[in-house]
């Protein structure tokens, strides 16, 4: 199992996972996405694989394409509009996110960071809940970029299912490393299912895109061989 995670079983919405009473039970449990606690019973709210970590965190891992904005996640957005001091960014959710012109490294009221419509931005969501429209920034708490900001021109961005994006980001999954043995490339992965790849030649970029898209239908082990074969054929 990758990193202390244990798959329990497949659950459907409404399935009872466990009964939990905060007064009687000894330890506390933590409920992640896909689970609800109602009337002393923990039930699944989504269809998927129920997983638990060693620290009693339970969640349902679902295969889905639709992104629901979550605070502190790193996402790739597309600039769609400029409204005064704020840019509207499409992050693939139901609402567009906003980003202030001051949320970039070394930006001040005098030195503005001008974004063109259609630019790709890699940033972090600092506000994301069902009540408010999402807000993102391209700096961390100490005003450093840390890899965030406008993505350089010349790459290709494509959409993958959310679980594929989570899979390739996982440090225990060697897929991206395996690809790098054949081709030198830069990759940026957004938790909203958007992946941006840049390599020296256009055909390498398309090949890398197709390799990552293979993960939608195969496990990383199966995809490893097919991906290597595809990249070999390129050389």
């Amino acid at each position, binding site marked *: *199992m990758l990193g202390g995670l244990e*798959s329990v079983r*497949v659950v*459907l*919405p*409404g*399935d009872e996972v466990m009964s939990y009473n905060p007064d009687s039970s000894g330890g506390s449990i933590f409920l992640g996405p*896909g689970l*609800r606690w109602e009337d002393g019973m923990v039930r699944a*709210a*989504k*269809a*998927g*694989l129920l997983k638990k970590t060693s620290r009693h965190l339970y969640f349902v*891992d*679902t*295969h*889905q*394409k*639709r992104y*629901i904005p979550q605070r502190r996640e790193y996402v790739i957005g597309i600039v769609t509009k400029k409204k005064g001091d704020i840019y509207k960014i499409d992050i693939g959710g*139901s*609402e567009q996110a906003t980003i202030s012109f001051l949320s970039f490294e070394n930006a001040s009221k005098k030195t503005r960071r001008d974004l063109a419509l259609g630019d790709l931005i890699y940033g972090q969501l600092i506000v994301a809940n*069902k*009540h408010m429209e999402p807000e993102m920034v391209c700096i961390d708490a100490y005003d450093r970029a840390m890899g965030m900001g406008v993505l350089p021109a010349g790459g290709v961005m494509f959409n993958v299912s959310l679980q594929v994006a989570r899979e390739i980001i996982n440090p225990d999954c060697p897929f991206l490393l395996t690809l790098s043995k054949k081709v030198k490339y830069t990759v940026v992965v957004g938790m909203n299912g958007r992946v941006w790849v840049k390599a020296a030649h256009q055909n390498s970029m398309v090949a890398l895109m197709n390799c990552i898209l293979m993960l939608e239908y*195969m*496990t990383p082990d199966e995809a490893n061989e097919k991906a290597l074969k595809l990249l070999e054929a390129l050389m």
Partner: protein
Amino acid sequence: MRGLNVALASVNGPGDVKVSNRLYNRSHLEVCYSPSTGHSMIRERALESVIMRTVEQAILVHLHPRTAINITIQEMQSDGLALSASVNAACMALLDAGIQMKTTFAAVTCCITPSGTVIIDPTEAEIQESVAEATFVFESSGEASVLTAHQDGRLSYEDFKKCLHHCQVASKDVFAFYRRMTEKKYQNEIES
């Protein structure tokens, strides 16, 4: 007998919604049903209404305010079971899309012949000859409460209870099917 009723369902959401449909505290649900032949008319509107009210009870709409969830159902083949096939297809599409729900739901149709026999999943011909037809949608918890009941024809109270009981038993098969399909989808992950 079975397999002649085919419905294709797809779910889009939670996504953008027109200002006129925007609700401050919940998601706006839309069901669009297209028949296999001809234009969408009153019959399709009625089906959409029944499906909408069923689905509304299952989806956790308060988790996604100011959004819209669109369910589109295309009737591919129909042999009398258009409603139950569509409801079940909608449930599977919602499961696949990962929309949070309180429960899964399953629809079963039955009809009563003039001699009093209950037929589950009747064909169009059997429905024409029957005294009454009823479709029940159940939720997946232990007691299998009824979410929706749609009935046509004349049923005595005893016959109604008989139909309900038979449909309740048959719904277990549908729930078992949902579970099998979900297990198949996550098969690769379970093994690793």
